[in-house]
């Protein structure tokens, strides 16, 4: 467990030592801020529905950008060899890096708390869906982190890691929007696979165990895949 924390600390610090963190955070805030407030005053409603509706798509770009360097860079520079010869297990390495990414997603969301506060000043804000939305956002970020981490463990190139991760996250987000092409029978199953579908449920303020379970299982599959891909490499 100690090792996990040390790896987490190191990775998390590295984000903020290099410009990566600041670039990613500013782009994220800029994009979500712009799209949210562009229509906010037109609707004239004091809620954050539009902001949360935007999140899955924004996350499917931003989160793979956060996770892309975690393994790819180490594989490329060769420091992976150093990491593995230290007294750690694969599981500790994976968990440490995953944790760093999840906490980074949380750090990314903190500045956006300004939005609900602003909205609450302008009108009556229902805090229930907002709280649900943030819980959902963290879960969504965690699931996408696991996917991004898996993509990163596959290749030495950060760009390929980013694109692979983004492709998977993006398809998970959009899968339930493509359903009208498909026969009725598949509908239920595919809808259940959609990340956006589960996220929407939570951001309505309904914390259903099925939705939570969905994000946890996506995380688990991602992490397990990472673990397997690392074992394959040695």
């Amino acid at each position, binding site marked *: 467990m100690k090792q996990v924390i*040390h790896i987490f600390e190191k990775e998390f*610090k590295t984000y903020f030592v290099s410009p990566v963190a600041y670039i990613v955070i500013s782009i994220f805030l800029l994009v979500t801020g712009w799209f949210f407030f562009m229509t906010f005053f037109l609707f004239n409603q004091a809620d954050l529905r539009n902001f949360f509706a935007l999140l899955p798509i924004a996350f499917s770009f931003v989160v793979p950008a956060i996770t892309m360097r975690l393994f790819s860079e180490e594989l490329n520079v060769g420091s992976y060899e150093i990491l593995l010869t*230290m*007294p*750690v*297990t694969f599981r500790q390495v994976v968990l440490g890096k995953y944790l760093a990414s999840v906490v980074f997603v949380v750090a990314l969301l903190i500045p956006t708390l300004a939005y609900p506060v602003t909205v609450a000043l302008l009108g009556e804000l229902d805090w229930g869906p907002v709280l649900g939305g943030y819980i959902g956002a963290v879960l969504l970020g965690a699931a996408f982190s696991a996917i991004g981490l898996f993509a990163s463990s596959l290749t030495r190139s950060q760009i390929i890691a980013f694109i692979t991760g983004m492709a998977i996250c993006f398809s998970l987000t959009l899968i339930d929007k493509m359903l009208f092409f498909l026969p009725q029978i598949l509908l239920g199953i595919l809808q259940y696979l959609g990340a956006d579908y589960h996220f929407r449920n939570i951001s309505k303020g309904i914390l259903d165990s099925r939705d939570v379970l969905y994000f946890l299982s996506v995380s688990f599959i991602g992490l397990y895949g990472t673990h397997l891909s690392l074992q394959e490499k*040695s």
Partner: protein
Amino acid sequence: MLTGYLRPTAGTIRVKDYTINEHTLEIKKLLGYLPESAPLYYDMLVYDYLDYVANMRDLERNRRISRIRGMGDLCGLNDVMHKSIGELSKGFKQRVGLAHAMLSDPEILVLDEPTLGLDPNQIVEIRDIIRRIGKEKTIILSTHILSEAEAACDRIVIIHQGKIVADSVTETLKQSVSGESTIYISLKNADFESVRKKLGPVEGIVSLMPIGQEDDTLNVKVTCQSSEDLREDLYRRIKRTSWILLELHQETKSLESIFQELTKES
């Protein structure tokens, strides 16, 4: 494989009572490893990096600080502790790698090409460090530079295509293979025929061979059994003639030629 980076496809490795497949963690704890060309985290500060490594190796706080200080002194890193690793020169990176390997005071050090890409001064420095530590610790040094191995190691194992072709103490290795040694002589005012007549009968000589004549200087290669030193005898004989001796030197076989011989045979 020994360091836990690769998994053996067959067979096993034993370190003390541990086997690599079952006790990977325990073995990793015993070892310090410097990979070839010391790949490192370029974004980190030297101090942060060493601190991270010390943490990962479970050193408690006080010992961590004192070990990092100690490594800073030993490897000459004190001036660069607060620079980021990416800024350092190759030599310093190598030293950071060395400090990393030795930080937890491991019983066994595995060094892969520790002097690769360094300038001669740095090579001497690193070699010095290695020899200093070698007094107390087991060091396994892997290198292609044989003079390096000769200078630093007590025991040499030569591996050719995955098979051990030689394994012995450095001195014995040098003697065992070289059954013959070579003496080079340069003479003025001499022709090969008379040289052969004069020197041929010396006991222990296997063959005499001219290897070139420039102006009036004759170069002769004398192959002889290495058990005896023939230089004295040869000199006495030359002294009696009217030749002028310009050069006479004996070549003991270098590890390079031993290596060539061993790997060619197999």
